[in-house]
């Protein structure tokens, strides 16, 4: 029997952000990444376009992350103290689309590295891999306001993705992105209105919307993901209805959130009822990603190679055309 399917005609769509620049474009990348451009809810190819698939950035830290789960660290044995080798492994071994470099050792309590040292790390990683880079600071605003502008300046032309700009602290980093032509991560705490407001502030400073990626904040599976899921979904629906101050592609720090969960970490000896830890942890990260892909994440920041592999397959399956 004929079924009159419902196809939404959406007024708005997600803007496209390009990260990285090839030699012709003034950078040194061998590939660039484009995210966004969707004119429907995620993966509904029958009624809209999804010109760019969601991408995976793998997280690399410029100090040995002792506090990380052993299973994640075991996956990077021998390279954890070397961000260059670590990044290479992510690209060559796992097919990471980008590297997400955290300059944690600039934190006064975690190494107090100088802006010059940070710049060198970024340069070294750039030299070692061909994929685009996202670079974020250590989370201490005063420090980040020194290192991120230094990185922006030294890497002019590379079209990096720099973070994080927040409601409390955005001036310096927005200016750095404008002057040296990089992209920006705008971070807000799970609140659509604050998200819009920050975007207005940033665009009023003069950074264009096609240079902004949103981090509306996520919670990990079991720990607040339902809120993140709905915020992303509402943001996407707002975008499709034509709200331009929400229409930027989105990013989520999936690995960071997922590996905080107790379920990802405790051993089977401690919790026999939860089964083997390695598989459980990997799935915890992968499922945090795949659930949020369904509500509109464009760029996933991940850690474990096995989780990355699972999500890559899920994305490939979901990018197949569909028709109804």
């Amino acid at each position: 029997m004929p079924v009159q399917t419902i196809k939404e005609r959406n007024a708005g769509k997600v803007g496209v952000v390009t990260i990285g620049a090839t030699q012709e474009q003034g950078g040194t990348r061998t590939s660039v990444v484009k995210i966004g451009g969707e004119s429907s809810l995620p993966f509904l190819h029958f009624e809209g376009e999804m010109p760019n698939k969601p991408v995976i950035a793998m997280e690399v830290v410029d100090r040995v992350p002792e506090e990380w789960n052993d299973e994640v660290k075991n996956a990077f044995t021998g390279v954890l103290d070397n961000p260059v080798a670590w990044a290479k492994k992510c690209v060559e071994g796992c097919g990471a689309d980008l590297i997400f470099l955290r300059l944690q050792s600039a934190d006064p309590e975690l190494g107090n590295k100088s802006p010059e040292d940070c710049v060198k790390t970024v340069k070294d990683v750039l030299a070692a891999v061909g994929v685009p880079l996202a670079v974020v600071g250590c989370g201490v605003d005063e420090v980040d306001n020194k290192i991120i502008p230094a990185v922006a300046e030294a890497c002019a032309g590379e079209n990096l993705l720099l973070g994080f700009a927040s409601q409390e602290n955005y001036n310096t980093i927005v200016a750095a992105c404008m002057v040296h032509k990089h992209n920006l991560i705008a971070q807000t705490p799970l609140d659509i209105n604050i998200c819009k407001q920050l975007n207005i502030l940033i665009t009023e400073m003069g950074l264009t919307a096609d240079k902004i990626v949103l981090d509306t904040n996520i919670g990990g599976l079991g720990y607040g993901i339902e809120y993140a899921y709905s915020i992303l979904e509402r943001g996407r629906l707002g975008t499709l209805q034509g709200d331009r101050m929400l229409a930027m592609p989105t990013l989520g720090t999936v690995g960071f959130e997922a590996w905080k969960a107790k379920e990802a970490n405790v051993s089977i000896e401690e919790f026999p009822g939860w089964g083997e830890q390695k598989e459980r942890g990997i799935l915890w990260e992968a499922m945090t990603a795949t659930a949020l892909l369904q509500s509109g994440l464009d760029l996933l920041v991940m850690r474990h190679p096995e989780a990355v592999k699972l999500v890559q397959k899920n994305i490939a399956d979901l990018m197949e055309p569909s028709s109804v």
Partner: protein
Amino acid sequence: MALTGLDIFKLLPKKNCKECGQATCLAFAMALAASKTSLDKCPYVSEEAKETLGGASAPPIKLVKVGKGDKEREMGDEVVLFRHDKAFYHPTCFAIEISDKLTGAELDAKIEKINGLVFERVGQKVSVDFAAVRNESGNADTFAAAVKEVAAKCNFALVLISTDPDAMAKALEVAGDTNPLIYCATVENYEKMVELAKKYSCPLAVRGNGLEETAALVEKVSASYKELVIDVGTNQLSQALAELTQTRRLSIKKKFRPFGYPVISFTSKDNPLDEVIEASVFVAKYASAVVLKADEKAQILPLMALRMNIYTDPQKPSQVEPKAYAIGNVTKNSPVYVTTNFSLTYYTVEGEVSGSKIPAYIISCPTDGISVLTGWAAGKFTPDKITEFIKACGIEELVDHRNLVIPGAVAVIKGALEEKSGWKVIVGPSEASGIPSFAKTHFA
């Protein structure tokens, strides 16, 4: 076709007597149109109006039950496309497959394993929902034999998977009284399957190949039997997502009757991890039941968490009563931890405190059910508010000391809290998982 509130209003008695729980007949009509109430709430509707409205006021997706007693599960009766519009109500049921080729000890072991898929997480007990016996042998007696064993030994209700009506008949002879889900009626076998479903009054799954064939088949079957579950029969994930989205949209927005039933989906992958990831898409997007082969605890637990999350009510976070909770055999010297009254936060902390084996009090401050940092940022978990509750909850009579452990995430409030409350504040770990070792060093 969906009726508007005004269409419905015209057919109501217009007594405005409020017995339906609404202020006026018009309000009742509006609520009916939005599927927020049911026609039987009004005692005065005429038979004629019932006829006309029956279809329109029925829920857009029928509620279907599988299993009996403790094993019973409800599926369907969803009213929105997006959880933020209201909530999703009937959590996706997970069915784990069992091949009827298994016999004896092997079959027992498999049943045991599925019975073990029960989990404790944040104060809740959750489990898989069904055992799905598949007639892989192709033999009717073999199928019935396996079904009989599973019905007797498994703690969950059954899904019977066979397209052979003879095999299904034999299986129902041994398990028809447990209200299993019969899977499935197809274009070829539906007449016989419907007969069986009627005979045992069991729910029946109807499988088509794509939307149109499925709708046509449901139309035929539902003319005589309405306890249905539908399967659009698609394997490829993005196509399945498209079709699941359409079944939900058409039932909710257009009240398209052939899709007004819970939907069941099967994973298509061989590797259990891939299967579980595939299932995560079905949980988020509209499946009322998912059948999978993966059966390891580590594989199922993430799905349990996702289901709990997607099916929580987004309007009101689940809360615990704000008070001083005694964990274990407390004394006047037991340590005191403070946290919020958000269930997730409280139970995470409670699990660790009881795991530390050192009896203690946990004070759950009234934060309207929000987490530690959210509460702090929203001004509901501040030195003032915590002090107020320390005085109000009676902890000062319960213990002789004045030492309070706070979450590491709000270390910044230490000074102010000490000043306000007069208690000595100890900054605890930022993750609750650090509590056992913290307790050992501080309180053992």
